């Protein structure tokens, strides 16, 4: 899987960008990227150097994602942790013509109507950053520690499904990973199996 996403990244890289870079790997430096938000402003991972960063893959039309937004669960996490200084980047890698590839104004409306509290919502229609990180589902979450190392990859929580009633019994892995990394302790569960819709590359 790691190899595959590496090659995918290589292929994309030779087409789209100059510097060579390696795919994301747990325990190693999270690879740099630059993406634009729906207003056209560019954001780079390196802007958040020294801060804990969350990467959240999303697709507003995916029922697994809707569970976490309709219930306010995702926005709650975004709010809690951005208030603690975490940079929360919500990324969409839907290719043009595929589900979840929305025009800019619909992104802005989605952000406003749902009270999305991320630091930025970033668009990756070429799927370059999604493949670089090996994002497989929406949602799929990654946590990067202050030192720039990738310390968590996987599911948002322990109960796969689309029913908000499942949230009550779920263990939130992202919350656990963030609490640990913010208190400078190693993440006890660094990798879980993400669940959701496939990323619409």
């Amino acid at each position: 899987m790691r190899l595959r996403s590496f090659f995918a990244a290589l292929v994309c890289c030779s087409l789209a960008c100059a510097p060579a870079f390696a795919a994301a790997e747990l325990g190693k430096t999270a690879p740099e990227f630059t993406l634009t938000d729906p207003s056209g402003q560019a954001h780079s991972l390196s802007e958040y150097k020294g801060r804990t960063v969350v990467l959240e893959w999303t697709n507003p039309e995916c029922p697994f994602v809707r569970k976490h937004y309709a219930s306010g669960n995702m926005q709650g996490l975004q709010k809690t942790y951005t208030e603690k200084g975490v940079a929360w980047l919500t990324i969409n890698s839907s290719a043009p013509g595929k589900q979840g590839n929305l025009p800019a104004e619909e992104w802005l409306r989605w952000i406003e109507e749902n009270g999305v509290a991320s630091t930025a919502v970033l668009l990756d229609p070429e799927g370059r950053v999604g493949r670089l990180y090996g994002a497989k589902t929406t949602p799929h979450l990654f946590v990067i520690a202050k030192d720039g190392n990738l310390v968590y990859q996987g599911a948002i929580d322990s109960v796969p499904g689309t029913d908000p009633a499942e949230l009550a019994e779920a263990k939130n892995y992202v919350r656990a990973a963030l609490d640990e990394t913010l208190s400078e302790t190693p993440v006890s569960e660094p990798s879980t199996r993400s669940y959701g819709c496939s990323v619409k590359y």
Partner: protein
Amino acid sequence: MRNGFRIFLGSLWLGAALVSQAAAAETAPHARLELIPERKQLAAGEFRVAVRFQIEKGWHLYWKNPGDSGLAPSFEWDLPRGVRLREILWPYPEKIEDASGTTYGYRDEAVLIALFEAAPKLSEAAITVKAKWIACEKTCVPEKGTARAVLSVKAPAAPPEALFLEAEKRIPYRNPYWLLSALIDDRTLSLVLYSPEGAAVPPGLRFFPEDPELLDPGAAQTVTGSKGSVELAVPLSAAAKIPQRLKGAVVADAAWNEWDARRALEIDTPLRLNPKKGT
């Protein structure tokens, strides 16, 4: 005024959302659920009921381990007193690949077999199942359905439903002639099958693990050896937590024995660690 307009727009939007939700509930789901008893005549002891999904062309449902994305169907049974659900047997899946990864699922049709046990002297058994599932094509839709079957002692004796003959062929089975051993060595799973009396190994072997975290569904599976024994080796996934037992199915492109057309072996065997290297 501006605010008022906004609230008005908001309620329009909400109204539209409610209407579209109601419409969604009325449109036919992408899979149709049915319960089909093997025999309508009820007798004490074990009986079988097929849980059949007929899936719209182009769409798919998922196996109990869905793979890189998706979700397995879930069931909530409403059973009368005296009837107990023993087990649900899932047909082996096929690999379904897209740009985002590999999943395990079913196209066209999936027939699961539910095994029940009836207490003696029961005159009727009405069984209801409420199922929830995710159907996916290019997009995914959560759906649900309810199905019912009634078995009765008064029902006339009849031959079993023909559907079961076909369905059984896809259910992984315990084959006592093929011996198994499963080992983890250097973060690689090695599953060895020893054939009875050197019989030829059927071609096209692939392993489907029940544990969703053990292997990457897209990882290459290496098969070596062909007569007498065969080894299937797959690297563990980064997230793998090594279980006590290896469970799943090994599926071949042909039958395992001349006298049995079934292609999938049930795997349920202790998983050992290579003591020298550890993991």
